[in-house]
């Protein structure tokens, strides 16, 4: 596997992970990166659970009462609630407190393995239906003690929004990858954007995986192999089942999904990790091309995901 140098490329750190921007015109990569960085910063200021000055942190601090929110957070909350409805509650924004109880209460680079005791008693998340979003008045109310986490959908929303803005402003094809959540907009390169799909977004270009092409929409991968940490000798990861508030059993190690937007791709990928063996049916029913890798490395492809023997 090798990388094609035909596009403009720019990279920077964002949202606690890495951003990678590709443009069909090499000379526009820097301008695209500037547009993307600006938009991603707005998302971070509004939606970060770890920044004490973010709007979301304020909403969490003021749980129990109405809190005014700006248009960026209002959109992100609406998207998170839509994702929750779409996935039957599998991807739920009210798992913030559960993540905190497990030790994921700060930017992941600052989460360290520790001997501290961890309570693994099942405790369902409060549930997305407890979130009252009044978009007309720009305010939200969550029950006292509930903490929202938009990590599952806000990063994908940022990728979608950033790609659309950059492509619209520059008139070229743009690919935005935020920590492996990929969104494309504008005219793609001939044959589409070729994307390496693998367990970890930061893996090198020769990491084991498959290369697929994408002409529109988004491609996202959720994996239990990343954002892992230990507490009291117990290995934990960041994908929680809202029904238990605990990391999901690892039926699928990694799930990649393509959809008409990165938000939907991310939602479907994360929900599939949670649903386990029931996920392929749902993905096929919605015609979402997907690649699911189980704990032993066995791969299941559904809804038109290309077979590896297609590789030339």
């Amino acid at each position, binding site marked *: 596997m090798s*990388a*094609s140098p035909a596009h403009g490329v720019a990279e920077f750190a964002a949202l606690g992970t890495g951003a990678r921007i590709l443009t069909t015109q090499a000379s526009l990569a820097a301008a695209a990166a500037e547009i993307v960085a600006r938009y991603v910063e707005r998302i971070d200021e509004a939606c970060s659970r770890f920044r004490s000055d973010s709007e979301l942190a304020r909403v969490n601090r003021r749980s129990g009462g109405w809190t005014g929110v700006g248009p960026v957070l209002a959109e992100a909350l609406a998207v998170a609630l839509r994702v929750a409805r779409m996935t039957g509650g599998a991807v739920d924004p009210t798992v913030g407190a559960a993540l905190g109880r497990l030790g994921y209460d700060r930017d992941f680079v600052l989460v360290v393995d520790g001997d501290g005791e961890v309570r693994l008693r099942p405790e369902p998340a409060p549930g997305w*239906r407890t979130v009252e979003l009044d978009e007309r008045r720009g305010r939200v109310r969550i029950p006292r003690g509930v903490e929202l986490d938009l990590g599952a959908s806000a990063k994908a929303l940022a990728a979608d929004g950033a790609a659309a803005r950059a492509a619209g402003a520059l008139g070229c094809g743009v690919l935005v990858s935020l920590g492996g959540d990929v969104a494309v907009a504008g005219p793609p390169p001939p044959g589409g954007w070729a994307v390496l799909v693998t367990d970890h977004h930061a893996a090198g270009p020769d990491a084991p995986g498959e290369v697929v092409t994408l002409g529109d929409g988004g491609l996202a991968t959720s994996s239990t192999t990343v954002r892992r940490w230990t507490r009291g000798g117990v290995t934990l990861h960041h994908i929680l089942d809202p029904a238990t508030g605990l990391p999901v059993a690892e039926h699928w190690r990694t799930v990649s999904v393509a959809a008409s937007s990165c938000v939907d791709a991310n939602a479907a990928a994360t929900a599939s990790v949670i649903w386990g063996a029931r996920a392929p049916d749902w993905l096929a029913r919605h015609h979402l091309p997907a690649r699911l890798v189980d704990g032993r490395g066995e791969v299941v492809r559904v809804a038109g995901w290309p077979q590896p023997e297609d590789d030339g």
Partner: protein
Amino acid sequence: MRSHQQAASERDRLLRRLRGWTTASVIGAFGLAGVLSLVAATTFPGRSAHASAPSGSQSGSSTPSPAPTNASTPPTAAPETPATPAAEDPPTPQPPATGVGSGRGRHSGAVSGGS
């Protein structure tokens, strides 16, 4: 005789008054119900009634909650011809318009992986 007429007159007067109270009570009850409905609609705006509902399904500031679902079970697909208003159905994801093709081993420098 006169006393009997007076008693009947008094009875009729009381009955008229009772009818008046009944009518006023009914009108008042309807009015109060209307006012309370308005207050409730303004005070409890519902859960993301605007952006999260499919277009054309927004009928006010409150959206009925869908039936409870188990997060560990994928939701069932919406029927081909919805028998209920669209707001009752969960939104459905769409595949990319151009699908996914084989990259034949050569990628453009973008990686999709867990993060």
